[in-house]
């Protein structure tokens, strides 16, 4: 039984300009011990999808799904209290901006032990001991001293380590890391990633890693979901994704990796992710796709087979060539 089952998850926001669908039909299964990566450019709804799962979206959001199950328990129908007993204990999340994610008014120790008090009913001594253990686990020097420190006395990397310690404090089954390294220095980024992978293995938890860095995906994940403008456009094993991407968007993302590029100038994908007011009809990627035809611009594509990476494309790529494309041009064109 999968630990996490999501089928057809959609989120729309009530905005001044009407409803805006930020996540559209996301489907995802995570097995115990899995590492799944969700990639995509800024604005493709990666955070929103996971925040919806955690129940952290503001009231302007409407969340719908066919199935939303964690550990066999239906998260759609459960009451708020039951949900809160899972969120923060069995299913936890760390965020993009470590510096603002810690409460400036409370000490590290207080914030670190809060989940333990609430979920595990631990007394103060036990909490303190566990907090020390956690800080050591995430590699914070002088943990005893750090317990009484306030967040503004910590660097970004330290803050993220504290966030990680908080997230794993109750031994979660699933950790969602939302771009945990985006706001950090390059040298720190690698350390934090290593730490997450180490903890994933030691604690035997599942990890969903959100990123827009294909390099990170290559180093860490087992399975990859590529998301674009709220839709999942491709799902594959890491190896397959890198050697044989099936969606033109994935292929373009890979082409913009520095180490994969032969040209002197880095190729980039022209244009940006469509926002609320410039969503095209048909395929959402069509305005930026080099293979787009009239069909792509007018008709939303269907999901391709499992062998074709469930690509959301009229002409999914096979070995770089668009299958069924009228001109059947080369991918390099």
């Amino acid at each position: 039984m999968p630990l996490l089952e999501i089928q057809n998850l959609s989120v729309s926001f009530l905005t001044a300009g009407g409803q805006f669908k930020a996540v559209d039909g996301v489907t995802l299964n995570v097995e115990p011990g899995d590492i799944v990566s969700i990639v995509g450019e800024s604005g493709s709804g990666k955070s929103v999808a996971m925040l919806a799962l955690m129940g952290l979206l503001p009231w302007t959001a409407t969340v719908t799904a066919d199935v939303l199950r964690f550990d066999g328990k239906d998260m759609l129908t459960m009451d708020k209290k039951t949900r809160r007993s899972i969120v923060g204990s069995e299913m936890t999340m760390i965020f993009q901006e470590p510096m603002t994610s810690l409460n400036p008014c409370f000490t590290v120790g207080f914030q670190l032990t809060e989940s333990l008090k609430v979920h595990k009913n631990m007394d103060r001594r036990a909490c303190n001991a566990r907090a020390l253990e956690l800080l050591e686990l995430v590699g914070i020097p002088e943990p005893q001293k750090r317990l009484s420190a306030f967040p503004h006395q910590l660097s970004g990397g330290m803050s993220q380590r504290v966030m990680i310690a908080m997230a794993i404090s109750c031994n979660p089954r699933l950790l969602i890391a939302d771009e945990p390294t985006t706001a950090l220095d390059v040298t720190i980024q690698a350390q934090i990633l290593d730490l997450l992978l180490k903890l994933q293995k030691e604690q035997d938890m599942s990890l969903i890693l959100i990123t827009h860095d294909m390099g990170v995906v290559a180093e860490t994940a087992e399975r990859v979901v590529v998301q674009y403008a709220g839709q999942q456009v491709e799902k594959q094993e890491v190896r397959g994704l890198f050697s044989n991407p099936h969606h033109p968007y994935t292929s373009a993302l890979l082409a913009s990796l520095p180490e994969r590029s032969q040209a002197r100038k880095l190729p980039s994908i022209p244009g940006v992710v469509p926002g609320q007011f410039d969503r095209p009809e048909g395929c959402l990627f069509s305005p930026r796709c080099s293979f787009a035809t009239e069909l792509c611009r007018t008709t939303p594509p269907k999901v391709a087979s499992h062998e074709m990476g469930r690509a959301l494309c009229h002409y999914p790529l096979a070995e770089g060539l668009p299958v069924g494309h009228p001109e059947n041009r080369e991918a390099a064109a």
Partner: protein
Amino acid sequence: MITFLLRKLGVLIPTFFGVTLVAFIFIRLLPGDPVLLMAGERGMSEERHTALMKEYGFDRPVWEQYLSYIGDLAQGDLGKSIITKKPVTKEFFTLFPATIELSLCAIIIAVFIGLPAGMIAATRRGSVFDHTVMAGALTGYSMPIFWWGLLLIIFFSGILGWTPVSGRISLLYYFEPVTGFMLIDSLMSGQEGAFSSALSHLILPAIVLGTIPLAVIARQTRSAMLEVLGEDYVRTAKAKGLGPGRVIGLHALRNAMIPVITVIGLQVGVLFAGAILTETIFSWPGIGKWMVDSISRRDYPSVQGGLLLIAAVVMMVNLVVDLLYGLINPQIRHTE
């Protein structure tokens, strides 16, 4: 912490001198002098007037009067009232508890209603409750104290006959002041009905005086709360699976309190200003009424001394607020 205090004091001392100067000049700018006003409608001969002015030392050049006033001040002497002949300090401290009692009740009403109202309005942004609170706050804020006071008196005292119109307690009761706070003294006196009499005298003026601070606190709490509720750390608190009580009442509130505390502190000055009007409307024997009476009698020493002491109290409260501010906001405490 010590340097923090010293720096605050460094600002306070010049402010203090400013207040002495302003109070001194202001009262002398008003037409008429204490001697003339004492004589009243009977009038007074030119020679007697000159003699009396000389006796009080008001014939000397103004700067000389100021210097001698500062000289006395340096020795802790605020002078004697021209009218009652009692030391200004003594008068002040006899009347001060009445004003404190009134102001304290006013601020308690303001905080205990304004804070929750602002909090709930923020968490239910756009709801009927939110709109009601905001409309109420705007009305309360723009309500002239005089008019509002009279309105309440007409309704509760006149039409309903629930509350008395003036004073601190019914004339039926008498006991020696111990603390100076009527609510406490009446309780300690053990006289039946004394406490409820004191309370019924206090309630209307306290509401009138508390209205503007209440409006300000409710609005400030709402906007601070709205800002804080969108912060990442509030999302983190929710992500821990904490209930709304902890998320809003602890994580959000603690941060929202930082600007609110400052505003509450600033309301102390507003309270004293409002106390002058409120005490006059309700004949409340406190500092405000004393100041108004002293000004109209041109009781120079009382006005000078009274203003100075009021300023001192306001500054002290602001200092306490600054300290509190540091206590809740660790960022301030550590960078000082």
